[in-house]
């Protein structure tokens, strides 16, 4: 049963998953290539600064991979108002777990690209003394970040249209309120509290922040 779900989901996800693989493979190589092309050499400070500039790309790719994978995994059920899924003789939790599990497996494809790109890039680069390469840690972080994005969007996509509308409407209302408060220059405490709750050390989106370093001290 899971194999059949896996096959159908692969059909829907494979294009973006393979694109994610290529991009994931390219980012670490590009970061090291750009270091060489700048002509500033592999001085430790230059390397760390250059690596930091590419950190955002990993986070964006992880977020985009999770979002795309979730939307493609649930989109077909959502468009059919979940009638097919609901008419199948399996418990709803089991069905949701199978869909979620299949999507999670395909999320590993871009992560594999990141890992291979990082390992190959690091193997071909001369890393200055005192610095270390972290291809495995970077990949694990990429996996975690893409899973967080995947889980959030799945929770929305797997719901009914009405529930999805409520969730998205709620998020939209919060963002709009924060934006207006920011313009008006009031409620800064609330804005910073929400920012902390989401992005601070224990916030649910904290994995996207901070340094995504392939090479660091």
């Amino acid at each position: 049963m899971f194999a059949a779900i896996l096959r159908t989901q692969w059909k829907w996800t494979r294009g973006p998953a393979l694109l994610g693989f290529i991009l994931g493979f390219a980012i670490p190589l590009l970061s090291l290539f750009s270091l060489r092309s700048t002509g500033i050499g592999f001085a430790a400070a230059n390397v760390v600064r250059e690596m930091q500039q590419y950190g955002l790309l990993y986070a964006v790719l992880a977020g985009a991979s999770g979002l795309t994978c979730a939307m493609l995994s649930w989109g077909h059920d959502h468009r059919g108002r979940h009638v097919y899924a609901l008419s199948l003789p399996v418990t709803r939790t089991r069905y949701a777990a199978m869909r979620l599990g299949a999507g999670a497996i395909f999320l590993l494809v871009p992560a594999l690209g990141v890992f291979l790109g990082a390992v190959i890039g690091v193997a071909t680069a001369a890393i200055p003394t005192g610095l270390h390469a972290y291809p495995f840690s970077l990949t694990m972080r990429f996996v975690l970040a893409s899973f967080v994005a995947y889980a959030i969007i799945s929770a929305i996509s797997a719901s009914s249209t009405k529930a999805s509308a409520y969730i998205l409407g709620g998020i939209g209302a919060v963002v709009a309120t924060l934006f207006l408060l920011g313009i008006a220059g009031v409620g800064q405490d609330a804005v910073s509290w929400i920012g902390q709750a989401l992005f601070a050390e224990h916030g649910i989106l904290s994995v996207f922040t901070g340094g995504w370093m392939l090479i660091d001290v």
Partner: protein
Amino acid sequence: MTYAVETEKLNYTAGRGEKAFHVTDLSLHVPKGAVFGFLGANGSGKTTTFRLLLALLKPDSGRITVLGESMPEEYVSVLAKTGYVPERPHVYPSLTVREAIDLHRTFYPTWDQKWADELLGEFNLVLDRKQSALSKGEAGKLQMLLALSQRPELLVLDEPTDGLDPVVRRDLLSALLAYVNDTQATVLISSHLVHELERICDWIGLMDHGNLLVEMPMQEFKNGIKRLRLASAPADLSNAPFTLLSREEESNGSQQWLVRGWTDGMHEFFTGRGATVREVVDLDLEEGFVEILRSSRANR
């Protein structure tokens, strides 16, 4: 009599305010082995009822028993024995015919691949064609193939032939009847094509505005609904052995009555009251259906 589907005082509300739709105190009894035709105008509650029976919706109150098991509690077991063809094709349109079959069959331990292959040939379906590229008739055939190849004890078919040409309709209904003859499965089918139901059903249910107006054997329904042409009408209708659905005065003083529950011996009711029945006209299912709806709506 044992029932494949039974509901008692089922209530459900969708939406709010003026747009709310209610299924009210629905008590439905589908005998085991019957081909039960479910008739009703658009928006009468047929699809909602089917979805309640299959636990796609949760009732507000009431009791549902399908194949001897309580719904929605036992939905996994019931759905494993039920073939469902919804109003619109529901298997993911991006899959090919082959992929749809491969996916669907993994969920049904009773799946009959040999018969599925036979139906594929009979319906002329191309395995590698995407469902989104299928014609309406081909999509309908695939839905029926998927439902039948499960070898279900109960088939719930929501307008399975709606919008299909007569040849495709005949193919689908032939396959359905062959299966029913072979297995004595119960069929619950809705359709706008009243004549089609008249041909294949042995029980009939009639729904309007979320209420079940009629539920009876087809033969009884067809034989019991008559148009009476009366030369003179009785003044007293107390203790009438039939139900008067509607009455129309004609210009020459005679009247036309539409009655339900008519049998031959009932002429005496009129003669005993000094009235004369000039003619008793048989109605077909469609005429009966329209007249019952009309009288029900007039009484609302």
